[in-house]
């Protein structure tokens, strides 16, 4: 039963107030993209055992989507950040590195 801090309203809330939204930082491919690109966008999932970036919506609160960096093996949360970005901000990357020195970065 996770707790996450919504960066949009500042509340630390429990999982039942949130809605999970799958892998973060996917790049959308639309018409004009190759079959492989489109398949990758819709289906190829990192699903790592370890550091993972994911989407959450503060569904029972401010209604905003945000992103979280979390370890899927321990459920440790490295940080949360607004959804309006295509890659994790430097502060989040630093927080992960501090806890997981072997982490090779978002691939």
């Amino acid at each position, binding site marked *: 039963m996770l707790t996450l801090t919504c960066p949009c309203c500042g509340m630390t809330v*429990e999982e039942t107030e949130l809605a999970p939204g799958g892998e973060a930082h996917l790049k959308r491919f*639309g*018409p004009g993209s190759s079959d492989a690109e*489109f398949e990758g966008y819709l289906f190829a999932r990192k699903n790592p055992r370890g550091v993972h970036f994911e989407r959450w919506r503060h569904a029972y609160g401010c209604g905003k*989507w945000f992103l979280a960096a979390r370890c899927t093996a*321990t459920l*440790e*949360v490295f940080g949360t950040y607004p*959804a309006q970005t295509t890659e994790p901000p430097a502060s989040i990357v630093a927080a992960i590195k501090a*806890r997981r020195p072997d982490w090779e970065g978002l691939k």
Partner: protein
Amino acid sequence: MSTRLATGGRLIDRTKPLGFRFNGKRLKGFAGDTLASALLGADQMLVGRSFKYHRPRGIIASGVEEPNALVGLGTGARFEPDQRTTTTELFDGAETSSQNHWPSLETDIGVLNNWAYRFLPAGFYYKTFMFPRAAWKHVFEPIVRQSAGLGKVPTERDADRYEHAYAFCDLLVVGGGVAGLSAALEAGRAGKRVIVWEQTAHWGGRSPVDGGQIDGMAPEDWVAGVLEQLAAMPNGSLRARCMAAGLYDHGYVLGYESVGDATPGDGRPRHRLWRVRAGQIVTATGAIERPLAFAGNDVPGVMLASAVRDYVVNWAVSPGDRTVIVTNNDDAYRTALVLLDAGLVVPAVLDARETPTGELIEAVRARGVRVLAGRGVAKVKGGKRVQGVQVCAQAGEGAVLEEIGCDCVAMSGGWSPVVHLWSHCGGKLLWDEANACFRPDPSRPPTGADGAAMVRAVGAANGALRLPEALADAGGPPAVAAAEGPMAPVWVMPQGAPPALRFKAFLDYQNDVKVSDVQLAAREGYESVEHTKRYTTLGMATDQGKLSNINGLAILSDALGQAIPVTGTTTFRPPYTPISFGAIAGEARGEIFQPLRRTPMHEWHEANGAHWEPVGLWRRPYSYPRAGEGLRDAVNREISNTRNSLGMLDASTLGKIVVKGPDAGKFLDMLYTNMMSTLPVGKCRYGLMCNENGFLMDDGVVVRLSEDSWLCHTTSGGADRIHGWMEDWLQCEWWDWKVYTANLTEQFAQVAIVGPNARKLLEKLGGMDVSKEALPFMTWAEGELGGFRARIFRISFSGELSYEIAVPASEGMAFWKACLAAGEEFGAMPYGTEALHVMRAEKGFIMIGDESDGTVIPQDLGLGWAISKKKEDYLGKRAQQRSFMDNPDRWQLVGLETLDGSVLPDGVYAVAEGHNPNGQRNVQGRVTSTYFSPTLGKGIAMGLVHRGPDRMGEVLDFPADAGKVFRARIVDPVFYDKDGEKQNV
């Protein structure tokens, strides 16, 4: 026999006698008793039968670890099976009954005596019952099931209520013994918000029974003082009768509070389930004494040494006149002293150690008790009650040295810290050689959201088993207790017990797992501790192995020739002890089992005989059958009335989402397959939404409200989902687009006025021009209609002249009634969802969830006209270009008409020639919607058929039930008013 002593009993109130029944027999106890102490006090040692062999079993423990003494408690709507007597507080009038026997507890024909159960060792059922094949299901399994099981089956709806509660704290202390209270006091003084839970009704844990001194005081006095201090702290909270059931990620702990168990029917909740979020958790959960494995260690009267002590001191109950103590450690000698103090007889202490010495041992010797060193039990004599023990050399193979008569055996195999909560969420254990137990490994704790340790174990739960160590470990005051010498890691008696003895030495009492079973598992290669557990069922009974796990592990390790920590432990799973399903469900039952969404007109529907249909969490009237009228007839009447004069539908559940902003048009063009940006203000347009996989996900009419705002109608079940979908794209993909959305579904009550007389009704209400010229099909207007603030949408889902009118929800009921009144002279009559569905099918309109099922794309449904060819992109467009979708060879929407006018069954398939490589009959289509059309007087259907639109007029075979084959012709899906003459008037 077991009896109530004339004096003593720190927990009972002799001025308050309580009556209860056991198997119909009237018995007496006192306030403060547990069911177990009251039963023992009334000389009821035999309380149940074991699971597999139906052996007679007695009370063995005094707490949550009790494996045997489970009873059925209560009657009727308050009956509960498998109730643990050692943790149930006695109350006046309690009805209890023993379990798992027939015909009676004393005489159970299911019992298997010593020779027969030889044929049923661990896992015997994996090796037998295989022939003939059908015999397992029809012969063997029913026998196994009937003889297994345990408690009786409750038959009634639970009469009690339950509730949940949340709490937040800096520190949750689990366990109100002296270690827990010490930790709580320290944190409380430091200003932390502290919650302390104690699973029993009493504070102080074992210390008041086991003695010693804390901070110069008797333990009981010290405990009372600390409780007072904690109670006075505004940042402290104490809760007794509350057990920590499970520890979960991010500091989430479940507490199971017994509120009204002992006061049935007083209106309070029976149980309360606490969900605590704690910054830190201290587990001060104490330790549990282990039995020893010797032949006959399950005969009623063989008990844990600490339990014998508890019964004497806490409840003034003597479990037996003559008690032989069997031990591998010093602590059990405390039991001898307690018994002697109570004037009872201790014929001997059998100590497995060769040279036991120490303060407690000397004290016992000084009282004239024989202490037999290096001795063990060869065998317990007796059937339904201990009659004596045969003494042997612990080092030998069981040759009997002497026999000692006794009616109680108090055994102690040492103590195991309660590490369950520590382990629930990933905390690891280490092996403590000195105490022969697993204890929490502080270097591998369970970790929380921040990755740091979230649990600390203190006191006996941390392996600090003796009072002074326990308090020191918990940061408490100095304490003194009798010094103890080292224990010996003895598990089985005697050490060289031959098969015949190991066959009667029980490890898991409830599941009848014996030493020989574990050894058999090891021999057969079930070497992992999890394999052994599952193969033998060791530790899988309702006590979850609290007494048996470590002993079994030790025996497995010995059989495998490896050290215990190499073997490791099984996983500890929540809950710590079983918790009621009622508590888990909490308040969610009956009326508030789930939210029920009501429209503003709900009460009217209910009062007017609506037959309800659940639609998501809403309930919508399916139809309004009149007295004596069948559902089918009611639907037909509603359809005919609507088609011929005037129908009214509560359409309030339709989703209504406003989308506004400079980029709203662009956004809706991405969301819908059609072009919405070009929709003129004042107009309506039917739109389709697909997901990124190209599949149709929702549909509805979009309304252009103003230059920069649109109103999107969604399906009834879809409003929240579609609103979330919109916000997802706006916040996470196109965050620089200037668009705001608002879900206004519940702001408006919406009524559809449908049928040839619809306009007359609106004209009668008055206030707005609803003429064909002023308000043509697919337009809308805003104004005051009959005095109500209204938006009128001239749209139709039935093919009739139709208006959908939205008014503020608070005025919905008044508006509905006003319409009914105004429409009376025109034949106005409400209709439900089924009539709605039939009428839309007559018109060939698709229904999300019927024609679409998550695998259908708009192109399949002949909705190509609603897909803009001009747009470069919309959600789902790229997916629809994939080879399997961009393909004319798909199943596509058609109408279906049976040759004989009958109604095709729901969901039936059209067969094609031959079979596929897996031997399945080939199919070429299926029915998606099928109804009797009262308008046309025959069955009509829609379906998806392979290349259907190219095959008009072909007849397909639909095999249905009992060999009947329906034959239906492929036709145009629009069955009624193809040219739309009725809706465009």
